[in-house]
């Protein structure tokens, strides 16, 4: 077994922290843009930053694939998407690298960054991760494919089919559940009759791991171990990162209808940004000045992205019919 903490140098820890802060600052700005009427809809990673950033850092970025869902802003930032890219996507601009302005915000995708294009029907992506892993296995490449999904997705048939297919074929896949306790308004207890998503792994003959999704070190170690297992040819792992979403499902949702303010306040005591900040201070890597420098850097990047996307051109209406089918390069 490889050392699962391998690679967590001070520089990497600080880089992880920066990406978590960047995601939060970017996320907050997207909500501002929404309330200003500049962005029709926003989906947040707010609260999931530790799970998403640490899991990306535990992969071989640039080589391994992530197959995300709409909650994964912090994940795609950690994979290399820039704040400018995110804002071009948010505002549906022509140069949006995810979709050229065709998809709703938070429908990620980048060939270069190995982020698979995303649809809106939840859980289909788990099958795509299994397929990417299947190709990697048949080509004898050391590639891992990691799918992410909410706990609501575990009720879908595709969840079962993907886990079973990947397990039977021993595919180099990681299935990372970001369990925040709610599928929009429906609590996990109405979604499943077991306390842990990870318990289901047993039915597929694969490891199921529960991890504190607010602790980036724990998430990193779990994903690192799963990736090592996948690369060794031992098959997929189901990881359940227990976390919380601090904001409504989307900018069109009002979470006061289904959860108390006390519950949210309690959860915020375990805010992954606070948890990690304390960890870094304890390790002597962060002090007030360095903390402020991280915030300033993130804010500058988000300011730049906002300004950049604000004046970027919209897609040309004449391109509506393009890319239905492959276009031969002349």
């Amino acid at each position: 077994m490889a050392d699962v903490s391998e690679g967590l140098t001070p520089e990497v820890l600080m880089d992880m922290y920066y990406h978590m802060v960047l995601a939060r600052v970017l996320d907050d700005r997207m909500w501002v843009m929404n309330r200003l009427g500049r962005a029709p809809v926003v989906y947040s990673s707010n609260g999931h930053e530790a799970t998403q950033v640490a899991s990306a850092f535990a992969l071989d970025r640039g080589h391994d694939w992530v197959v995300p869902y709409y909650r994964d802003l912090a994940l795609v930032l950690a994979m290399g998407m820039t704040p400018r890219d995110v804002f071009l996507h948010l505002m549906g601009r022509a140069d949006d690298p995810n979709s050229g302005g065709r998809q709703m915000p938070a429908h990620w995708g980048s060939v270069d960054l190995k982020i698979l294009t995303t649809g809106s029907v939840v859980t289909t992506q788990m099958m795509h991760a299994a397929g990417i892993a299947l190709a990697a296995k048949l080509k004898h490449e050391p590639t891992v494919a990691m799918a992410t999904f909410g706990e609501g997705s575990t009720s879908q048939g595709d969840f079962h089919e993907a886990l079973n297919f990947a397990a039977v074929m021993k595919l180099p896949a990681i299935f990372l559940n970001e369990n925040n306790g709610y599928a929009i308004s429906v609590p996990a207890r109405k979604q499943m009759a077991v306390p842990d998503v990870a318990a289901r792994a047993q039915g597929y003959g694969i490891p199921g791991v529960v991890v504190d999704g607010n602790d980036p070190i724990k998430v990193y170690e779990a994903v690192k171990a799963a990736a090592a297992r996948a690369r060794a040819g031992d098959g997929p792992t189901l990881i359940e990162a227990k976390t919380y979403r601090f904001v409504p499902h989307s900018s069109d949702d009002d979470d006061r209808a289904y959860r108390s303010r006390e519950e949210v306040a309690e959860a915020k005591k375990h805010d992954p940004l606070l948890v990690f900040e304390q960890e870094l201070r304890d390790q002597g890597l962060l002090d007030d000045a360095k903390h402020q420098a991280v915030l300033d850097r993130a804010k500058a990047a988000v300011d730049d992205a906002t300004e950049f996307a604000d004046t970027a051109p919209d897609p040309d209406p004449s391109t509506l019919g393009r890319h239905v089918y492959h276009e031969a390069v002349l």
Partner: protein
Amino acid sequence: MAMTYLEAVRETLRQEMRRDARIIIYGEDVGVRGGVFRATEGLQEEFGEDRVMDSPLAESAIIGTAIGAAINGLRPVPEIQFADFIFPAVNQIVQEAARIRYRSNGTFGVPMVIRAPYGGGIHGALYHSQCIEAFFAHVPGLKVVMPATPYDVKGLLASSIEDEDPVLFLEHKGAYRSIRGEVPDERYLIPLGEAEVKREGTDLSIISWGMTVNSSLKAAENLAKEGVSVEVLDLRTIRPLDTEAILTTARKTGKVLVVHEDNLTGGFGGEVSALIAEHALFDLDAPIRRLAGPDVPAMPYAPSLEHAFLVTPEKIEAAARELAEF
């Protein structure tokens, strides 16, 4: 050499797999058993278990994983055992495979061929006899291929595998062993979207695709003995659609009978008819006529009921004769 429609499928798969190491085949019973119709018989022996795989019995997984495999550089040719079983995979086909290129602004693509046996007349009853083409022909981003002859199977299947986009390749079960024809040994491609006049004629045109092309040719042969000259146009692919060939034959004979085994209402014959009505109405000498399966949920089991459902050469002959006399 002469071979059956089924042998054409198998030999084309073999030839393509020898040529392109990226091609993999998987689905239910396609490996050791060589498929329930033997379309993949002997392929696992030749290409190994990595390239010809028995998969778990789950259509959505077969197609969903093929999408991922295609994006990661392979050329999957998954089999859906019966076209009737494709519906659990519709979300993956329609919402994912067909939309991935468009939604990613052309940056991702899904080169994949889904083979599925369709059609009735083999005592398959409601769930082993369906024609499913109309559901999928409605979907931009997909291609729908329906060969009628062994020669076309080879050229169209090779083209489908080479195509950069998802193709639904529908093979008629009734044709598998009953339709024989000459198939050259060497590789050749038939472009997707090119119809073919399978028989020249002057009095009326039958437009069809898939197995009913063969039934239409039989009807045309019989009518020739009565002095009725029937042209038979085989669309071969219904998406992309050869609109020019449709309008050309309609203008040539002035009378059009559209024939398909799928049930009438919402069938693809409606699209063909609408095109002619829009673009060639004043070249017509008679109303466009459609002959199709009846509007019942699917084909029943008992031979008497099955026969009553089917679009037989006799029914085509009668409809064509009536149209010729109009």
